[in-house]
């Protein structure tokens, strides 16, 4: 088991390197560079700056160096100094801007993942056990709808419904009057009344897919001889189902936790824009539109790193739960 974890962790390293390189390329992709942008910013502010001065900034920042050298400097700064570069739009270090938002993104994603599982697993098991029952059909319809509705549309519609019918002020993480206030019970309730929409939105898409997967896996597993063996031991139906086939049917689930993360991050970006949440999404979108590339690149880098780590964790979880993989 230990050697498996070690091997898997070592595998993640080249992936991380590639991820960081691609993030860097995205920073580099748009025409012009930081110096151009900076100069444009200054000129907009009414300052006068010559081509030569612009060139001097470029040399000073090393923007004329080969891409690989620049990449080395960028990643070195991140690794050794925690310095992600400067957001010229906000005129602040990137690292000051992102951590709060990342924490919230992670919180939302984790909550949604838990919510997804809580919905999807029991429903999938039920649907498989009562195949072709009324509820099974109902869940099938739900599954297809969840797959077909884009996240942002669901967010819009839920927002609209809760505005019209529930008369809630939605959008954002809390009502404006609680902004900046210390955490009180009222504020906590207010946050809860806001946060359910993004969680439902993020979980619906995922749950829809997972119900289908869980149902199919369970149908496969329920027909296998070891289930009958378990019944023949005198275990009750509930004990048999949850201890044996569910354990096996969960394995593909566990192996995709890592892939659920990128999906959740992706979903979060769009949902957060619609719902105006202070997560990474809106800031990333803004950064991209403003060509604030250090900020955007850092976001992409960090989100990708989280995903790689997530995949790593899910692989280890899978090995822990499925002996066939552990000893392979």
């Amino acid at each position, binding site marked *: 088991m230990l050697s498996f974890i070690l091997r898997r962790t070592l595998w993640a390293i080249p992936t991380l390197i590639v991820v960081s390189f691609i993030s860097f390329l995205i920073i580099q992709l748009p025409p012009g560079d930081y110096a151009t942008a900076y100069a444009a910013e200054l000129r907009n502010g009414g300052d006068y700056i010559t081509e030569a001065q612009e060139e001097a900034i470029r040399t000073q920042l090393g923007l004329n160096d080969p891409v690989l050298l620049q990449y080395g400097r960028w990643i070195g700064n991140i690794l050794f100094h925690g310095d992600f570069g400067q957001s010229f739009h906000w005129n602040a270090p990137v690292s000051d801007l992102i951590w709060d938002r990342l924490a919230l993104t992670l919180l939302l994603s984790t909550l949604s993942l838990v919510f997804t599982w809580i919905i999807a697993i029991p429903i999938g098991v039920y649907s498989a056990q009562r195949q072709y029952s009324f509820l099974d059909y109902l869940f099938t319809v739900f599954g297809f709808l969840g797959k077909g509705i884009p996240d942002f549309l669901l967010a819009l519609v839920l927002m609209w419904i809760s505005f019209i019918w529930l008369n809630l002020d939605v959008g954002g993480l809390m009502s404006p009057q609680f902004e900046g206030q210390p955490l009180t019970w009222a504020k906590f309730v207010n946050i809860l009344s806001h946060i359910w929409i993004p969680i439902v939105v993020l979980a619906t898409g995922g749950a829809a897919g997972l119900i289908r997967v869980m149902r199919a896996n369970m149908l496969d597993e329920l027909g296998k001889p070891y289930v009958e063996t378990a019944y023949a031991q005198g275990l009750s139906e509930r004990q048999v189902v949850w201890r044996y086939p569910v354990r096996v049917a969960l394995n593909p689930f566990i192996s995709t936790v890592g892939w659920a993360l990128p999906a959740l991050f992706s979903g979060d970006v*769009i949902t957060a824009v619609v719902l105006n949440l202070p997560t990474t999404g809106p800031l990333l979108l803004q950064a991209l539109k403003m060509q604030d590339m250090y900020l955007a690149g850092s976001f992409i880098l960090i989100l990708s790193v989280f995903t790689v780590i997530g995949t790593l964790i899910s692989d280890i979880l899978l090995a822990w739960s499925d002996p066939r993989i552990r000893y392979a």
Partner: protein
Amino acid sequence: MSVDPNHPDLSLEVAAADGEGLYTARPWQLIWWRFRKHRLALASLVFLIFAYTVAIFAEFVAPYSPTSIERLQTFVPPQVVRVWHDGAPHRPFIYELERTRDPVTARVTYVQNRENPIPLKFFVRGEDYKFWGIWRTDLHLFGLDDRRQKVNLLGTDSLGRDLFSRLVYGARVTLSAGLIGVLFAFVLGLFFGSISGYYGGFLDSSIQRLMEFIRSVPTIPLWMGLAAALPIEWDPLFVYVLITLILALIGWTHLARVVRGRFLSLRTEDYVMAARLAGASEYRVITKHMLPSMTSYIIAAMTLAVPEMILGETALSFLGLGLRPPVVSWGVLLQDAQNLRSISLAPWLLTPGLAVVTVVLAFNFLGDGLRDAADPYGH
């Protein structure tokens, strides 16, 4: 025992139900028979054919141009086509709309004038357009004779543009983006998947790593990053091609996985071994024995990939990073429905979303049906 599913003369003798004796059915026929049993998939196929037909003849189907602004008809709610006027059946018509202003809120409202039915005409002369950019004509599928009144089946937006016409024009962009994206993804996926699955070894594992990598990156931020790098001033058509290419760059892995999986399992099938033992060349083994039994799977996988592309395009354009006005796509249309205010003022602006959902679902049902039908040993 394994029978080569590509050679019907060897394997597939089907007894006719009415006992007319034996005849052989080609594999495609068998797939079609199995497919026909999936009512939902069949209905989806019909619907999609309809949708694409509308998209192809968008200029003719849409009563107005997608960009013609009508300043005095902003936020007109969807109009109902009626067939009953004054207690008697009537040919299809709409009531005349009168624009009034609410004295208290100063908001514009529209009131139907119940006295004045305006008949809806088919094949009417309307705005000029160039059909497919080739012929100049002014024939439309339907419209009104009265030029001052407009028929807005799905209402209008903030500039008074007819949402139905925009939806129809947008269908052309969105639906074709899905197909073209899948086509790019298909080329990439088939290439990498078949190399990976057929040769195996080092090539396989490095391609596997690449695919794993692409799948482990959050797609939308990556799409956003790539899309944001496209300069705004480029030609919209060129941006459109690049956007589909970006979608494909990330979307090909699923197809490659399907192709690779099929290759791996086919390689060990007895009939492939038999063909090899009979002295067939490698080229012949791949083209005559392996590929034919994969086409149906690939088509099913491609069908299931189209909605991903459509959703991707919609999401990007919705965020303002994909296609941009004046190009009309469903994602671009949904930009108008981005905030609560416009939705509560004009809920019909969400209809492009409904169109996205329907098309995506139809593709999913169709793909599921195809996949089931393509499995020669399925239940």
